């Protein structure tokens, strides 16, 4: 949540916020909880019109960023999505758009990027596998050369918006390293099993590859050379996720402090009790720190800084841990109303708890930090 935005970026934040407030208020989020997809594809087209999914898409393919730093711009949207725990596959679509913009073939870029930008096509990244998830070393899905192409065998889990995706970016293992493929949904031998999550509108599913046959043209980037691409995709995913969580805790902190000033006990607003004020002070420290580290990570990734792998993991570790602490304490500060279905707090508690886990827990990334520091 940068303190210095350009006029374009301020305007983008403002239109994003207004759009979400009118088209995806929390009442709408509650309605979508009962739907299979968790979001409405017609609504997603409008999001595309606002430019949400075109930020990483080159201008030649109908996209463009505001500032030349697409991730810093995308973070603005992610923060607003977090403030309203909004639906929609913003994160996975942008991760795939960034991946194709960076490493896709001319054909893939021309075919897919414009349609991701408009919102008519949805793509997601199939990366994690059980056992050693969210880590390139844990990729065991095998791509075997077969004729002119490859055969994919294995299962990907916790794939966001799997059931709605039209394209999967799949990170697989080939003899000489990691290789990524762009796989259309409905390809023979690709079986999607939809799932639900703690979040009311965010769906994850597993994708099984039963010897799915792919042409050589499905390869994204270099055969055996996708490790760096996968790392960058993970960095972008983590950054957008941190930004969304930051938006969520910012909003929850805001309405909790308001509530404490309106709620009276023993003849005083509960915001006047030092035992509670001091907790609020700690939370402001955490919220501001979370904003600072989330922004720091996005800037480092956009700039291709050498320490980006460390900074984005530091951000995830910090934001992941503190966001849940903040949510828990805000529920406590609300008292009984905070644990009801009626109150919106649980929508936020659900979102930040899912975000804490997906794309690697804070504990996972702290271990990765140790490895990066060569401990």
């Amino acid at each position, binding site marked *: 949540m940068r303190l210095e935005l350009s006029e374009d970026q301020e305007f983008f934040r403002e239109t994003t916020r207004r759009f979400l407030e009118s088209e995806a208020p929390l009442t709408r989020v509650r309605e979508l909880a009962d739907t299979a997809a968790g979001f409405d594809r017609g609504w997603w087209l409008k999001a595309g019109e606002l430019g949400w999914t075109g930020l990483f898409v080159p201008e030649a393919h109908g996209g463009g960023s505001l500032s030349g730093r697409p991730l810093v711009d995308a973070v603005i949207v992610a923060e607003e999505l977090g403030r309203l725990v909004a639906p929609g596959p913003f994160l996975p679509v942008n991760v795939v758009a960034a991946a194709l913009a960076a490493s896709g073939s001319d054909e893939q870029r021309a075919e897919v990027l414009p349609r991701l930008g408009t919102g008519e096509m949805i793509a997601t990244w199939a990366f994690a596998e059980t056992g050693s998830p969210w880590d390139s070393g844990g990729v065991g899905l095998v791509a075997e050369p077969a004729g002119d192409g490859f055969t994919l065998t294995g299962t990907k889990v916790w794939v966001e918006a799997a059931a709605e995706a039209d394209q999967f970016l799949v990170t697989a293992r080939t003899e000489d390293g990691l290789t990524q493929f762009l796989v259309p949904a409905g390809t023979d031998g690709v079986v999607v099993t939809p799932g639900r999550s703690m979040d009311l509108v965010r769906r994850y599913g597993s994708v099984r590859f039963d010897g799915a046959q792919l042409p050589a043209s499905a390869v994204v980037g270099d055969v055996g050379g996708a490790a760096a691409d996968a790392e960058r995709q993970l960095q972008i995913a983590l950054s957008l996720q941190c930004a969304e969580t930051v938006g969520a805790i910012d909003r929850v902190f805001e309405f909790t402090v308001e509530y404490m000033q309106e709620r009276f006990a023993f003849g005083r607003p509960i915001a006047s009790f030092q035992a509670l004020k001091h907790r609020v002070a700690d939370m402001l*420290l955490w919220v501001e720190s979370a904003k600072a580290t989330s922004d720091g990570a996005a800037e480092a990734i956009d700039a291709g800084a050498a320490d980006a792998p460390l900074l984005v993991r530091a951000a995830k570790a910090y934001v992941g841990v503190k966001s849940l602490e903040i949510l828990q304490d805000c529920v406590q500060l609300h008292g009984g109303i905070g644990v009801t279905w009626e109150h919106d707090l649980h929508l936020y508690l659900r979102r930040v708890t899912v975000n804490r886990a997906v794309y690697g827990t804070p504990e996972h990334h702290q*271990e990765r930090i140790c490895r990066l520091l060569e401990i």
Partner: protein
Amino acid sequence: MGDEMESLDDFRARARTWLATNMTRRAGAVDAEDLMERSSQMQANLFDAGFAGIAFPREYGGAGLTLEHQEVFAQEAAPYEMPIAYVVSIGMLAPTLLDNGSEVLKKRHLPRMLRGEEVWIQLLSEPSGGSDMAGALTRATRDGDSWVLSGSKIWSSGAFTADYGMCLARTDWDAPKHRGLSMFAVPLQGTPGLTIEPIREANGNAEFCQEFFDDVVLPGENLIGSENAGWSVAQSLLLHERNAVAGVGYGVGLIGGDAEEGETTFGGPTVAELIRLARVRGVSDEGPIRQLIAEAYVQSIVSSQLGQRVMTGMRVGTYKFQWGSLPKLGLGVDVPRLAEIAVAVAGDEGVIWEGDADPAEPSLFLLGCRAVSISGGSNEIQRNIVSERLLGLPREPSFDRDLPFNEVVRNRGKFTGSSA
């Protein structure tokens, strides 16, 4: 000052070149040996090159630039050893004098302070109370054109070698506590009636002093701000203190050290040092130890990012200067936590040493780390400031705010709990 202000980019380039040719890169922790002498030489060099008091007006010896330039300088200075001994004098006292002092005092003292020829400290806390600073009992009585000071101050660092102390004293005992205080510039060397005693701390060091004033006579012009307006001068001093401790404001850049490299300014271990300790003990592959080291790393990164964010917020006007309390609170929480991590990682090696060797660093750090969470306004005081001033929550009820101070003193020991 008709000439145009130097652009940040030009300034950065000039600072970078100058630092590279004139300053020494830091290697490990700051060496306490000869610290004052080294700082003094460095500060004089900085002054001559126009890098002392970067955001101070030129008529008082400063460079006439902005806090933004100061921030840029701090970024460039991070890899170098800087005159850390002047953080208090230049980062806290000089801006307070700039905000509150008379022209006579500012013209006389600020250039000397910025050049490092004159060192100032603060004389605020008293043995009777630290956090409740407005309850000061040290007395200043008018005597013709002079003032006569009596009482005692405590927790001042470096009073032995400093030249001046900024001393808060009570000048009206019939006024309510905040409205009967005045601030004075007190010369500390060879002053008749002044005794300075060191305080030995739990870690064996003696950084702090207690001062006893026995009818110390001060010239009238040593009053800083107006008579009985000392509380607002003290507020200004506390604000600059919090900012300096938190690494924001006028003093930023004096500390040196790159937080992103895990370097700390509080004597705590760097991340590299924690890794070394874990290896010495053979526990660097144990999951819980690795999590602790990573936690320390994350905290050092985030704390530096928060400092930069708050600096930016102050610069663009989103945050008031009081926001320095937020990173100050952060340090007050993080530094003791880092000390716990250090003893956890070091294990026995952190608390036991052979023969006459120097005490193990983790044990010294643990014994001393609370200085950060108590001095400069305790964590609890910072939490009051954050919740009341930054977030606008209701203030703590006060039982003595409106009473004449004489009655507050008399009422001690008869607390009934009813608010005045």
